[in-house]
């Protein structure tokens, strides 16, 4: 097992940072009045770790006995949908965004099934079941609207825990019905502390310069930091002392590839270059990289390379084309549209022309 999962804390008391948050969650779990939760924060902050810890606090060690079900749903247009559900005796976990635009059907049917089977044992610790909804910010608007009535109608039997990166995509009625719990990203000091713990458990030593380098380059993402540490361990020469070779930390290869795409767009702006970039975009799509990730990574690359005058134009264009990828089926059209728009605006800036109003 990777160090990431091997050294993951399982209880709220054993968490390494955000002590005050842990204390509040412990006291919240101990009462009988557990509200709907909306846990939000950046990636790698430990949102899901805390949700699993909450479940353990609510139901005890039994919540860790998990199984995976594959449920099949039938849409009104007679299309079959399959979704994986991780479940225990006390809770369910679903990721509705896996089925795309049909998440409303799944939400309605699944919650209805869970709600109809009420708890009969009056002496149980909790009389409600918990449904964890992962990546809630990717739910469609119809699905979020369907949740409004369900949250109110079945609140006696079901408690929802939504996990999202950002609250801007959650509609206001759902935000008002949930208790919003913010999990902030860890500081570099906290990341260094966690890495030191892992190295001690493994019987390894590393210089402080290496730990500082990892902590400062992982974008305050603890998952990324731990994976980087494990990578450095695998690549370092064979001894118990990890050596800081001074080399740059390895980026994920898909990020490196997207940066190459950005470089080729900056070098030349011509139809032939659009054609060359198209084949690179096809390569990214065939490697299962989501088009939204491609657009975000390209945008962040350009923001660090291009004059600040272009930043508003690029941000708006990226948002616009990301919206179009969700509305349509062929993402290559919209990725290439972003490429053409960038080349046009960049060429106008190079030629000293006045930029159009956006």
């Amino acid at each position: 097992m990777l160090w990431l999962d091997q050294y993951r804390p399982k209880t709220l008391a054993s968490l390494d940072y955000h002590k005050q948050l842990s204390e509040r969650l412990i006291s919240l779990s101990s009462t009988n009045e557990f509200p709907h939760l909306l846990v939000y924060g950046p990636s790698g902050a430990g949102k899901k770790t805390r949700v699993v810890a909450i479940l353990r606090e609510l139901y005890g060690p039994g919540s860790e006995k998990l199984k995976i079900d594959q449920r099949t749903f039938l849409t009104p247009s007679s299309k079959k949908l399959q979704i994986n559900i991780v479940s225990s005796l006390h809770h369910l976990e679903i990721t509705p965004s896996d089925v795309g635009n049909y998440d409303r059907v799944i939400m309605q049917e699944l919650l209805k099934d869970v709600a109809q089977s009420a708890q009969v044992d009056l002496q149980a610790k909790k009389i409600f079941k918990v449904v964890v909804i992962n990546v809630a910010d990717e739910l469609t608007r119809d699905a979020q609207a369907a949740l409004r009535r369900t949250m109110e109608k079945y609140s006696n039997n079901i408690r929802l825990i939504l996990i999202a990166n950002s609250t801007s995509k959650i509609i206001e009625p759902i935000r008002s019905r949930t208790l919003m719990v913010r999990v902030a990203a860890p500081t570099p000091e906290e990341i260094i502390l966690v890495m030191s713990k892992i190295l001690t458990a493994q019987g390894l030593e590393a210089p402080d310069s290496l730990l500082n380098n990892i902590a400062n380059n992982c974008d305050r993402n603890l998952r990324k930091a731990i994976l980087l540490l494990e990578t450095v361990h695998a690549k370092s020469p064979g001894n118990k002392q990890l050596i800081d070779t001074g080399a740059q930390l390895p980026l994920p290869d898909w990020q490196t590839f997207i940066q190459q795409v950005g470089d080729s767009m900056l070098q030349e702006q011509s139809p032939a270059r659009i054609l060359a970039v198209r084949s690179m975009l096809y390569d990214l799509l065939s490697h299962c990289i989501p088009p939204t990730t491609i657009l975000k990574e390209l945008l962040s690359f350009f923001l660090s390379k291009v004059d600040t005058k272009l930043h508003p134009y690029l941000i708006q264009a990226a948002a616009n084309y990301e919206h179009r990828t969700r509305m349509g089926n062929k993402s290559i059209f919209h990725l290439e549209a972003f490429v053409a728009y960038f080349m046009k605006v960049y060429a106008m800036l190079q030629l000293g022309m006045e930029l159009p109003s956006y």
Partner: protein
Amino acid sequence: MDSIPNEDDLEKLLVAEQNVPYGKNYESFEDEENYLLELRNANALENLEHRSIPNDLFHSSQPVGSPTRNGDDIPSTLDLYSSDNAAIDTDISEDETINQRHAPQTDYRYPNTSANPKMGLEESMDIDMPSIDLDISNAAAFPRDSNLLFRNYNSHTKTSEKGSPVNFEKENQDSNVLFSTGRTSVLHIDAEQSQTNNTVTPLKDDALSLFSFENDVNGAVNDNSLDQKLSASKNSQRVSLPFFSKIELDEGSSFSGPKISARTSSGKIIYFPKKKNRHSDGLLLQPKRLADEISQVNEIGKDFNQDLLNSVRIWSENFLIVSKEKSVALKTEKLDSLQITNCTTKPQSQKLWVDTYRPQLFRDLLGDERVHRAAMHWIKAWDPCVFGKSRLQPSKSMRFNPRFTNITSDSDRPDKRIMMLTGLAGAGKTTLAHVIAHQAGYKVLEINASDDRTAHTVHEKVSSAISNHSALSSQPTCVIVDEIDGGDPAFVRALLSLLESDEKATEYSQAGNSKKKKKFKKLCRPIICICNDLYTPALRPLRPYAQIIYFRPPPQASLVGRLRTICRNENIAVDSRSLTLLTDIYNSDIRSCINSLQLLSLNNKRIDSETIKLLQPKSNSFSTSSLIQSLFLQLDNKQIRAIEASQPTYSHLDALLARIDGANDSESVLMNCFHTYLDLPFTDSLLSKPALTSEWLYFFDQLHSQCYKGNYELWRYIPYSIIHFHYLYATPEKCRLPHPPRSDLEALKLYRTRKEILDSFISTLNAYENQMHGERSILLELIRTILITINPTLKQKEDSMPRSALPSKIEHAINILNHYNLRFQQLPVGDGNYVYRLEPPLDELVWDAPTSSYSVRQMLSQELLKKRLADIKKQTLTDNPTSSNSSRKRKDFNSGKAIKRDFFGRIISEPKSEAVTSNNAALNTGDHPVSIKHAINIKFHDGFSNAVRKPISLNEILNF
């Protein structure tokens, strides 16, 4: 008198030229020669009989006196024989008359000259032979003439009809003449009046022959003959008509006049002296011989007769030979025609060459021999279970197949219960499955995609085949499931349940629990699965249980050699370059190549490169390519006016819209335009046109997605998004279309393949990891780290590598491989080397996948095997905790030693010995510590290598 025959001669010549071609004249010459031969024979015999001197002197005077008549005689003879029917009839009648004349002669001579019996015999022989020959020649010639006459002129049938009564009358005439009655002569006169002029000459000939006969009888009376001659001449002078002259001749003959009277009349009549002159010529020659050689009369006669006989025989033999040759020629022609018909019927009765030339033996298989040998080895590993043979010896198997040491196990069956053959179509997978099953002694039960293949089929066919012997044959059954990736997923699940029950039965049998063992059946027969796409979602649960064998297309050289052999057997002329081109077109697909050859051979017995180039598939469909060309073509004003003039309310843009709307697949038209427009030369310094195109493409994408959701009424607006290409990018020159756009399809295929690899990896994760990690974080973050961790970097220098440091890195890698159910699989590369490939192939999900050396991967693979065996050991010995603890300690001790040895520089060879020791340790139970100590001392140095090739007989392979 002289002018009339001349006119007759001219008429005959005209008739002959008109009626008879040159060939007939030639045939008439032959008839003439035959007649002359006959006459000479007769005259020679007569002259031999005659010995009176005055007759000789009389004959000699005639030719000297009439040289001019000889000149006249030649055309007259031609005229005589120009009429074919008359000539033939005269010949036949003359034969009869000759026979009649000779009979009384013999009677006459016999009582008189008893001293010369030999002469009589010779005469009889001479008479018989010519008549036979003449009959043959006449019979052969007659039907042709009649046929020719019938074809050319119908009027000649009348002459032939007249010919037959003429013969009848002649016969009566001869008989009547013999009786010499006056009344019959009157009847003859009446008949003669009806005849034409053509029939006059045969009467004269008959008269001549009869007259000569009478002369012989009344030769002594000379005075009486002179008086008769005078009276005959007077009568002829009085009457001017030839009719009357004929009457007188007949009367003369009736009065039995001698030659003298005929001669006097013939002196005045033209025809008589011609033949006499010929007779006299013959007579003159022969008497000289007699006078010169009187004493040798018998000898001279013999020589003369023999010469004639020989010449006649030679002629007849030549004729027969010619006739035989002609008949032989006819027969050969018939045979040729028969052969032609046979050739036309043969190809229709032939069956497919793919079936005719299918390999039946192991040595006939095409492709990589090691793949075939590996498959054979797998099916032979079933022999202890099926046939009760002894186990395979590890040393022998490892010598030839070191990469398949996993197949050899402690049980009587291979570890992988199912073999999966995967590869492209036409690579020979099904053929290999049948050949090895048949060679190993099994009866094949094939379940194909076209058969009924459901879960019910598994229970009916596969289960019964596995558990029972077939009633029809004594051989055990081997199940071959063809096209398994295209079948029903329920089939795969049912097959999987068989394997799972087999696993449980094996576990319970090893644990000694017989009660639970009865519930689960054991798999006792091999099952071979064949598929094209290994990474179909339906096959995901089956992959861990299968021995996967990867098929590649056969080498081009061996395939070309096999095709050349087939062409030689089928008598087709073809060169290697053409066959190489054929294999290139079909990408070494064996089935397609052979079927194409059979198709071409129906029309051509000689195949060249140009013929094979016709098989290339068309690159573009006509309608779509022409539509796209017209979209990117800017029309002249004249052309636009012409279009608008023909239909006033119809513009060329409407025409284009109608064509786009009429296309079968507007999406393919748009994708073709999308892939083409950036190659066109358009002037746009700020790239505003591509930006505008993106808006139209977004419009199309919205409509298209709505149509997929069921709103089909928006379909009518799709052509308007395509027409914008004409506005923005049309050029006056015709654009050259590239190859059809495949990047979109190829990207989709690669996406599906990699998605399937990712899904299969996620399905192996446990619930906790599924709980904590989403699909995106696994793809973007976890897989990269896993790949780096399982490919650790190790330096070769011993000084910089303390022993205590490496175990942590290596153990970590082994733990990750074991936890995520990954393994390194050894596969052959084309040039004889081996690589360790990760299974499932997560390398394809990243760019620049990290790699490690062969030795490191080999070490990790061996260590992983040890760890898994240890885990199995733990599970089996859970009931005996004390013994398991002791075995754990011993294994730790062994593993410690093995790892230490690696750092003395023997990284490559030591892991194999470790594998042997680990196998021995696994085989032995914990209660035998002494055997473990002995196992430690084993050093195994053998290995498979292609450096030195060794010939192996098939018996060695089969006797594993």
